[in-house]
């Protein structure tokens, strides 16, 4: 019994010794609590860190971590409430400064408390998953000070007010601002965002909305853009000065929305100062500003581009459809080139060489250049003009530059085959008349065409050059084999391959005996060196230089056409001839003969013949005599036949018809190619594919394609499907 009692007693004694004196915990906490008070009262110099640290350690070690932690929360909350009260009482400008000072004090105190309670932070807080001391201090500050009912709105309004002041030009204490806003950031991203950034952005939106309305009512477009540029820079500066870097994108987008996006339409279309006005007056700086500002907002550039496109098309349409302006082809093309240069420069200098703008420019040109069906002809004429004489004395690089620009226009053409047709004609004339200025320039352009449209497009053009070269060689050979011909008239023959050159009806005429002898010799020489060939004389395309002595002994060298030469040679034997006699002797067709007589008898200064009776027109009853009184200050006189510069209306029709005729086999070939690979295809798809295949040469007409299909069906290349009439089958 006693034994048992004794054991009980022993156990109890043991228990009492293990439990630490509860007063010990209270006592220790009092010391720590006092220290925290002292720290907040700036009275920490008398505190011993070692002692406080040891005390906090001991409390945790003896399982009083909970007491320590709750004590900390209570004490800190008490002090923060005191601080809150003092801040609330602050008046005017002192408010923000006091808040900042108290925040700094709290941070410092928090650091010291954290030092003392380091062991608790490391062990007790970690294992119980409580909030760490530093974070706890921030949370308590946030809840007791920043969220206090008397501070929260006042603080926000003060800050927004300061921002507003700065925006309207006042100087504010940025350092203070920075520190206070840093406080929001330190309290956590969500605090900064919800309690400062969001209201800040709303206030900014309101501010810039009012501002932009004011500007737009009072400024023209250029001025407005200048003013809109400013806040963008300022707000970025503001972010650098005292906001979180992450706010930059947000505030920038607010300014962009209020200052730019909301006014895009109005700015672009502003009367007398909008985009069209800028384009017309080449206001590079304003347009550059518009570009760099509008690119920031959705649809900004699209609007600019659309307005530019619309304006371009309108302007271009007027340009190409104005009959006044299409009178002179060279000027017409020059105008187009000038416009292109102008817009090229605008896009380059103001629109940052934006690809989409370049595309808009190209598509606009493509649109209106093709509005005028004569554009291919005019472009070819422009080239002709440049290669005939325009390029004389111009450097090789400049030639290249002009040709490049022309190629640019050429690219816009839908009917490239029409251009080819004209180009061929004009080139033929240049080559045969020896009027081409530079062989290099000619070849250069051919190379450009070749790279643009492929070999097929230029093979015939190149054939023309080859003919010129071989003719030269043949002629050398001819005279070498006939040394006896070195005296007497000289014959220059250009042998043209049929097909390479623009076809023209062969007009026969009786050549003077001297010439026809030569021609026969050449024919037999040529046929002797080449077998299986046929030569026919294109007398309508030749020229002749003849020496003439007139009644008073004046000597002239006359440059005339072959027909004119035939006529003039007749006057070697007789002084006076009737129209009928001439016609009989030369057998030149009437219209050509009339034209050639007209140019020799009716043009002042070139009238080597005299017509009886005198009149403007050639009649069949007219008589002709040599004009003895012919006078010219030049020794060489060129008597041109009336050359067609621009095609006349019927000629144009004819060319067009020829082009249409040439297109037929090409369309048919395309249809067959497509059907051969696809076997079965419906109508719409054929049309689409054919158009696509041919668009490098011309824009095929759907009705024409349909006609070609029908023709192919007739010729058993294709058949219609029995059940679905819209379907075509390829017949092998």
């Amino acid at each position: 019994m006693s034994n048992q009692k004794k054991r009980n007693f022993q156990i109890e004694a043991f228990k009492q010794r293990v439990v630490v004196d509860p007063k010990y915990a209270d006592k220790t906490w009092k010391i720590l609590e006092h220290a925290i008070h002292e720290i907040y009262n700036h009275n920490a110099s008398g505190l011993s860190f070692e002692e406080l640290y040891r005390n906090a350690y001991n409390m945790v070690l003896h399982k009083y971590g909970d007491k320590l932690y709750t004590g900390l929360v209570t004490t800190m909350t008490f002090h923060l409430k005191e601080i809150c009260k003092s801040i609330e009482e602050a008046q005017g400008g002192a408010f923000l400064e006091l808040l900042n000072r108290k925040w700094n004090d709290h941070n410092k105190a928090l650091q010291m408390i954290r030092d003392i309670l380091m062991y608790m932070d490391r062990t007790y807080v970690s294992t119980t998953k409580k909030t760490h001391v530093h974070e706890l201090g921030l949370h308590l500050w946030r809840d007791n000070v920043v969220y206090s009912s008397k501070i929260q709105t006042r603080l926000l309004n003060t800050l927004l007010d300061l921002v507003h002041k700065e925006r309207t030009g006042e100087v504010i204490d940025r350092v203070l601002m920075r520190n206070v806003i840093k406080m929001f950031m330190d309290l956590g991203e969500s605090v900064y965002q919800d309690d400062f950034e969001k209201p800040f952005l709303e206030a900014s939106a309101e501010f810039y909305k009012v501002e932009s309305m004011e500007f737009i009512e009072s400024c023209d477009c250029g001025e407005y853009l200048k003013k809109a540029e400013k806040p963008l820079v300022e707000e970025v500066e503001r972010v650098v000065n005292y906001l979180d870097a992450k706010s930059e994108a947000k505030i920038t987008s607010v300014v962009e929305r209020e200052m730019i996006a909301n006014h895009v339409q109005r700015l672009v279309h502003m009367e007398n100062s909008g985009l069209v006005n800028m384009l017309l007056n080449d206001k590079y700086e304003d347009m550059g500003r518009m570009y760099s500002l509008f690119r920031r907002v959705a649809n900004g550039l699209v609007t600019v581009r659309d307005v530019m496109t619309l304006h371009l098309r309108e302007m271009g349409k007027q340009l190409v459809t104005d009959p006044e302006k299409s009178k002179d082809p060279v000027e017409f093309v020059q105008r187009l080139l000038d416009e292109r240069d102008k817009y090229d420069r605008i896009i380059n200098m103001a629109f940052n060489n934006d690809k989409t703008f370049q595309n808009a420019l190209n598509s606009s040109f493509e649109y209106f250049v093709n509005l005028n069906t004569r554009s291919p002809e005019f472009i070819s004429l422009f080239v002709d003009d440049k290669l005939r004489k325009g390029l004389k004395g111009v450097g090789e690089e400049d030639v290249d530059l002009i040709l490049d620009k022309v190629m640019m226009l050429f690219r816009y053409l839908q009917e490239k085959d029409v251009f080819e047709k004209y180009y061929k004609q004009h080139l033929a004339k240049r080559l045969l008349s020896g009027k081409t200025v530079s062989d290099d320039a000619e070849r250069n352009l051919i190379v450009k065409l070749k790279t643009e449209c492929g070999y097929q497009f230029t093979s015939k053009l190149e054939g023309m050059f080859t003919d010129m070269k071989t003719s030269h060689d043949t002629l050398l050979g001819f005279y070498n084999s006939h040394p006896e011909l070195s005296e007497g008239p000289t014959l220059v023959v250009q042998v043209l391959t049929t097909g390479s050159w623009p076809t023209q009806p062969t007009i026969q005429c009786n050549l003077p005996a001297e010439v026809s002898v030569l021609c026969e010799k050449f024919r037999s020489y040529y046929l002797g060196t080449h077998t299986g060939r046929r030569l026919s004389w294109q007398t309508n395309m030749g020229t002749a230089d003849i020496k003439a002595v007139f009644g008073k002994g004046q000597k002239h060298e006359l440059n005339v056409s072959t027909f004119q030469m035939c006529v003039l040679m007749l006057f070697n034997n007789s002084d006076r001839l009737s129209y009928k006699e001439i016609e009989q002797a030369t057998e030149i067709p009437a219209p050509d003969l009339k034209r050639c007589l007209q140019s020799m008898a009716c043009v002042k200064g070139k009238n080597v013949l005299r017509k009886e009776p005198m009149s403007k027109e050639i009649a069949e009853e007219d008589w002709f005599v040599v004009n003895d009184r012919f006078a010219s200050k030049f020794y060489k006189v060129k008597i041109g036949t009336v050359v067609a510069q621009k095609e006349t209306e019927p000629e144009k029709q004819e060319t067009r018809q020829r082009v249409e005729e040439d297109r037929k086999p090409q369309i048919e070939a395309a249809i067959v190619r497509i059907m051969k690979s696809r076997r079965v295809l419906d109508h719409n798809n054929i049309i689409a594919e054919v158009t696509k295949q041919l668009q490098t040469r011309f824009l095929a007409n759907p009705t024409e394609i349909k006609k070609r299909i029908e023709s192919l069906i007739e010729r058993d290349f294709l058949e219609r499907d029995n059940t679905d009439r819209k379907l075509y089958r390829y017949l092998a």
Partner: protein
Amino acid sequence: MGLSNDRIRFNVGGRIFETTATTLANAGRGSFFGALFDENWNLSQPEDLFIDRNPDCFAVLLDLLRTGDLNIPPNIPERLLHKEAMFYGLIDHLRTAKWGPFDGNRLHLSRSVTGIAPGDGTAIRAGPDGGCCVAHGSVVHVFDWMLEEHPTINLDYQRVNDVGWIDSGNIVLSACERLGRGDGGMGLFSSSSGELRYKFQVSHDNQIKSYSAGALSFSPDSKIFTSCKGRSNEYGIGVWDQITGKQLDFFYESPGWSLGDADKLQWLSGKNCLLVATLFPRKDNCYISLLDFRDKNMVWSWSDIGFLATAEEKRVRDAIAMEESNSICVVNEFEDLGFIDMRMDGGGSSVRWSSRSRLMKSKMPDEPCYPKLALHEGQLFSSMNDSISVFCGSDWVLTSRLKRSYGGSICDFSIGGDRLFALHSEENVFDVWETLPPPII
């Protein structure tokens, strides 16, 4: 300048120490010394600074700050030293000085820890900071890096299949379910207190179902994978988010291919795939596959069905993917290593067995343990009976063998926190292998 100002005298538990502020600065701001010398604290020093602590331990810790090396005299109990280091906030310094960066060829046995759990251990897992946990039947024993045991973990005291560390404070445990009770499954525990923090649910067709959780794997983007066996057809691999605890995904088992029974899961970051291996003897055949969860596709698979008639002894017992060489290393019960090329479509394609001598074949111990594999920074580890072999180089040359005299065969081992833990099947003991600190020169 100010060399004399740098000098500091301490009176620690009655003994005078003299050192410099520079030396103490090595302790860092988050330590006792860091705070002590902060300008916030008015360190007027009329006399020696008194610290009411053990002077012997202070001497050791001061030397640690001076040299970075830890030398514990035999008269100082390690626990006392750890406690002192905790006081000064130097426990992390102590831990990093205690053992060096892991190298399989320079390991030495640091300690063997004997437990009191009945029966065989199931699994051992190394924690990220040098601690470990050991699954024994229905409970898991948790040890911190000081090898002090924390409260055990259990999930309704159901049989534990696998455990794993999410971080040094959190452990995931997977366990069998008990029919009809909703017990078992998978839970997240605090490693220090052992309390259950979260129990992971699996739901099929928006209905929460009970399940048995098997092998575990974690991915760097905070996902947990486990093989699941439900009551009816809910077999497959479940995926959860470590942070929210919500189920993210479920890869249902395709017919004839055991995913729910998998012995091993391994997340492959480079391939964005999960390796799933179901091995003999859980199933009669071995199945290894790579799952892509983005489009629920089994992107690669291998099985030994039909390949056993000729080489019966070559049954795959463990597998580990080696992403760098695009191959999977496998091991059979004789510790022969084999390699499967992941680039070629599996389809039973050949395992390239390396021709190691099979010394084991003659003397198998009474209680054999199946080989296990581990990969750590280019070194391959394979356990067999009572030893662990270390292989290095591109041809996997055997370079070291870790062996200890008692405890019987090694049933599981794990590498982490620069330590290797080996769990023995007998005697309820596990060994801790560490790399020695780097040499002086």
